[in-house]
């Protein structure tokens, strides 16, 4: 097969070709060390502080999409055929500050200034989509940006005032969209990319079939979708990942299909990609989705990766298991589908053979009388890893609970169904007593751990209380709000 070994993209205004990019090379180090674009900062190297935020423009099925991402855990190889926009490119060619920048200056939005370039990039990405945002939209856009100086108030004021300075039409990047899209399309040459030294090989398959083939050739390869976890293997644990097969660019693996019997999510669809389609069918997932990481990570991270990674504290498996999701695994041309909960065998062990990959996730539509909830408990509300995550789906028919699916994260070595609690509910009348019994049953089937996120006692008690909350929220007799989300 005809391969190419260089990574080609547009960096700010210029076409760039980088020869032999190793799998571990990060976009941030490339920008700072090789290009001396030092406006982009390293604050944590784990995608949590946002000081390294840059925009990556990519050609999706829907056209050219710009998203803020964390350059610290974004692998350089994955910006192939993308447009990377850094803080240095934001002001106009005449040096005039961008409206977002001017608003930040006018509203005293920077103090020490180290987080500022990243914050400006996040606000810029928001402004592209929504030049006149609400405070809530600003907060959501800034979930992945830490500021230790300002307390954020002046930043939020700046973001809501930026539109008074100028409109997106005046923005040079917005004006150049068509030209950039054409240049990106020209970079896509349909060839597999095999780059970097042998021990640190980066492979970008051409499409999903090519991915299946690559994985047969390299069954030991690390599959990297959004890199929001694998990125840390490199930046934090200095662990080699080569050969790495990158799949985030495969539009065929990012598709979201809405069928009569449910939703099919491509394994490389990002959290952001999935958000609207999921919320459409499962409204309870909309607020939950906003609590998965920060915006940058939601633009990179994928539901498929969250599953395949097998973490006991992933945000999506519990809620998807409760909804009865199935996944399809593929090896070569062979496919098999399994219930999502069956994928998780034990801590660090999943039902995935060498050379196999998660191709799609199918989430069935809710049955009549199905009541769903998704809960997350964490030390900080946003951009935190859950102490406990819960998906609860209970079907009620004529006042009787006819079915219950409860799945918990953070309570065991894997995301796990609470079968005893489910049994305690099933066949019972819809009543507080039934949920009390279910809460008691939890104590018998889970022995959570104590760590820095939460103690075992707190995990157990709050998990039990989430069942109580579910009853109160869903019960018609409840008149006052029972959770902060609805208060």
């Amino acid at each position, binding site marked *: 097969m005809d391969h190419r070994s260089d990574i080609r993209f547009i960096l700010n205004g210029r076409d760039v070709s980088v020869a032999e990019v190793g799998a571990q090379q990060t976009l941030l180090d490339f920008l700072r060390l090789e290009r*001396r*674009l*030092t*406006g982009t*900062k390293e*604050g*944590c*190297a784990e995608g*949590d*502080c946002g000081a390294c935020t840059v925009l990556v423009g990519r050609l999706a099925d829907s056209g050219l999409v710009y998203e803020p991402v964390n350059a610290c855990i974004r692998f350089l190889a994955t910006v192939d055929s993308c447009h990377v926009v*850094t*803080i240095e490119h934001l002001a106009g060619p005449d040096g005039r*500050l961008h409206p977002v*920048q001017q608003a*930040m*200056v*006018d509203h*005293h939005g*920077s*103090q*020490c*200034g*180290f*987080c*500022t*370039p990243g914050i*400006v990039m996040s606000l810029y990405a928001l402004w592209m989509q929504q030049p006149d945002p609400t405070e809530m939209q*600003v*907060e959501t856009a800034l979930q992945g940006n*830490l*500021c*230790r100086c*300002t*307390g*954020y*108030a002046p*930043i*939020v004021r700046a973001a809501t005032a930026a539109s008074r300075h100028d409109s997106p039409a005046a923005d040079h990047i917005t004006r150049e969209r068509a030209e950039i899209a054409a240049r990106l399309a020209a970079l896509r040459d349909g060839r597999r990319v095999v780059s970097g030294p042998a021990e640190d090989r980066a492979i970008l398959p051409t499409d999903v079939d090519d991915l299946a083939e690559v994985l047969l050739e390299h069954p030991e390869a690390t599959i990297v979708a959004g890199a929001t976890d694998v990125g840390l293997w490199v930046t*934090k644990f*200095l662990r080699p990942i080569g050969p790495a097969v990158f799949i985030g660019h495969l539009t065929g693996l990012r598709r979201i299909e809405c069928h009569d019997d449910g939703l099919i999510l491509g394994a490389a669809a990002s959290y952001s990609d999935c958000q609207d389609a999921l919320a459409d069918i499962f409204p309870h997932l909309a607020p939950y989705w906003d609590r998965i990481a920060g915006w940058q990570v939601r633009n990179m991270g994928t539901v498929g990766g969250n599953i395949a990674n097998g973490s006991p504290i992933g945000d999506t498996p519990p809620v998807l298991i409760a909804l009865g999701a199935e996944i399809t695994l593929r090896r070569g041309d062979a496919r098999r589908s399994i219930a999502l909960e069956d994928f998780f065998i034990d801590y660090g062990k999943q039902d995935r053979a060498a050379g196999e990959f998660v191709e799609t996730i199918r989430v069935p539509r809710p049955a009549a009388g199905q009541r769903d909830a998704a809960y997350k*408990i*964490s*030390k*900080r*509300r946003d951009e935190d*890893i859950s*102490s406990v995550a819960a998906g609860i789906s209970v079907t009620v028919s004529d006042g009787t609970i006819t079915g219950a699916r409860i799945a918990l994260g953070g309570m065991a070595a894997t995301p796990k169904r609470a079968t005893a609690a489910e049994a305690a509910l099933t066949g019972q009348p819809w009543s507080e007593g039934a949920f009390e019994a279910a809460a008691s049953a939890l104590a018998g089937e889970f022995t959570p751990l104590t760590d*820095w*996120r*939460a103690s075992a006692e707190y995990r157990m008690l*709050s998990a039990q209380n*989430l069942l109580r*909350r579910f009853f*109160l929220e869903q019960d018609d007799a409840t008149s*006052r*709000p*029972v*959770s*902060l989300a609805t*208060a």
Partner: protein
Amino acid sequence: MKDNVSIRGSVHTDRIHDSAAKHVTGAADYTDDIPQPEGTLHAYLGVSNVAHATLHGIDLTAVRAAPGVIGVLTADDIPGVNDISPTGLNDEPVFPTETIQFHGQPLFAVIAETRDAARRAAELAEADCTPLPHALDPVAAMEADYPHVTAPLKLERGDVGPAFEDATNRIQGCMTIGGQDHMYLEGHIAFAIPGEDDEIVVHCSTQHPSEAQHMVAHVLGVPSNAVVVNVRRMGGGFGGKESQMNLFCAVAAIAAKKWNRAVKIRPDRDQDMTATGKRHDFVVDYDVAFDDAGRIEAVEGSFAARCGFSADLSGPVTDRALFHADNAYFYPNVRLVSRPMKTNTVSNTAFRGFGGPQGVIVAERMIEEIAYATGQDPLDVRKANFYGGAGRDLTPYHQEVEDNILDRLVTELEQSADYRTRRAAIVDHNLGSRILKKGIALTPVKFGISFTATWYNQAGALVHVYNDGSIHLNHGGTEMGQGLNTKVAQVVAEAFQVDFERIKITRTTTEKVPNTSATAASSGSDLNGMAALDAVEQIKARLVAFAAEKWSVAPEAVAFKANHVHIGAETLTFAQFIKAAYMARVQLSAAGFYKTPKIHWDRGAGKGRPFYYYAYGAACSEVTIDTLTGEYRVDRTDILHDVGRSLNPALDKGQVEGAFIQGMGWLTTEELWWDDKGQLRTHAPSTYKIPLASDRPRIFNVNLADWSENRELTIKRSKAVGEPPFMLGISVFEALSMAVASVADYRICPRLDAPATPERVLMAVERLKKA
């Protein structure tokens, strides 16, 4: 030049931060952004993986053999003294030689061609050591008879013995207060460039360039005049860069001299958080006597702190905890002792408030105890105990409170925040709401301004006026985001009556102003503003004398006004006038100096006037908690804060807002968690959670008490602002406590420990439900 009526950027105006445009464009350079000379090497620290052990040796064979490695630095490579203790106690080695004192302690440094190579190689060492038992927290340390890291302090006034014996009511309790990581967005970094002979230049991110200079000289065994330390700006400091950069500067400098190449050291976030100190955790035993009206009769308190393995700044930090254990309240009889405990943890250090917040929150806990015991609104208990009235103005350290404005300030906030009505509505809400409970609290703060190390209260500045009329300003303070450079430049602009833009603010460097104090203790503009003003006044005096002579007018007829100089009937632009002065050989440069008057402190006696003045403030916060999960939200916060006559209200408001959120974070989601092996497990933003934009109060009203003016002759009658508003975050903690108390009908003081994570809130709710 245009004849302006007034200048741009004078004092008391909302001048933007001088680097704002550079911040938003990414053009502001931090230490890691400075272009590197050819051949620059990179250092990385190798650290211990045990909390306490006898160290026999370190096998560095694999480290030295790793790709890209140039060499390794150990204690043997230190040409001067293997010590970087900031107080000269000689208890903090660069690298230990006999005993490992904490998990993550730096043992050696690798020097390599790239940072990545150095980082990878640092993992390959094998320390040969015999583990020893460890004590991680102050209670364990006291139980194990660990020593104090520095001499404790006792503050005493009145006679607590009889006061407790005759007490109408008495409550004893204990409060655990967590520490806090600085989480400055820019981590530690030092970049050393060797010069000829014994010379070296170090660029670094430090609040205390002079100390870095002295430490580098100390470890290199050279005089201070061989070392230059430069700081253009820091990406946040908050106290974390007051002494903690010594290590990095020392390593970079030793390596740079050893290999005669530039050396940069930048730990990753995890190493930054594990190897450098934090805010001290405290465990405080308190005993309070009070009358039936809730007036305090006596207080006794023992303040044990997790100081870590060495003293660092723990002495002054624990001292300041005692200085603020009264917060705003008069204690008729009082005895306070500090217990700066050695622990097998990283050596704790300065952090905004410097022990003060831990003292203040204990005062507020005692107020709560009294309020729940007497069935009163805590605000009424607070007001009943404020300083003021006959014989009620002496602090536990025998300083008279002369400038108290809390009665007015708190009353104004109480009204503007509609506190009484809202509290009644909240009590009502809680009766009808089964799961969600609300709380509200209005808490004051009184904070003493001055370094308690009296000699630190001095500053220098250097001002040059070039013969084109442009002005170069340098002072000993460092810029970490607080806008110090902007404020000092405003002072200079005002004094010369020129536009702000005429003044170039340059990096802080030990070459221009020697023997500076740390930019800390909120003192930056008080000290450096005055020093800069002194320099300007010297130059102006020469200029006036020159003008009076040349134009034959009385000195009073010479006036600097709006970019012009008026000399009798003549008017020149500032630039024209300066040119004339230069041609007449007038010296256009001056070094300014300032030392704070009036202060004195006798630590042995526990008496004196350690503080020049006090800054005041108050905050009212309302919260909602979920009694099923302990999750909460801050619904509203109103703040009224005293900065005297603000030099720059916009920047000061930014300090107040930011400090409040940081204080709130300390008491809510920011939790430091060590495992039983002594390893800190919350060592990066993924595990250590500082507030986000969405944690801001849903309604956030912040105002400066614009009627306030410093009674003392500070720079333009302003007051310091960096630290005092940090303690406004306590209002959130107290509001959470009230919400918790509601589940037991406000009969029991919840005794919430800090930080009040959702877990602690839920567990307190459960405890009170069962009580």
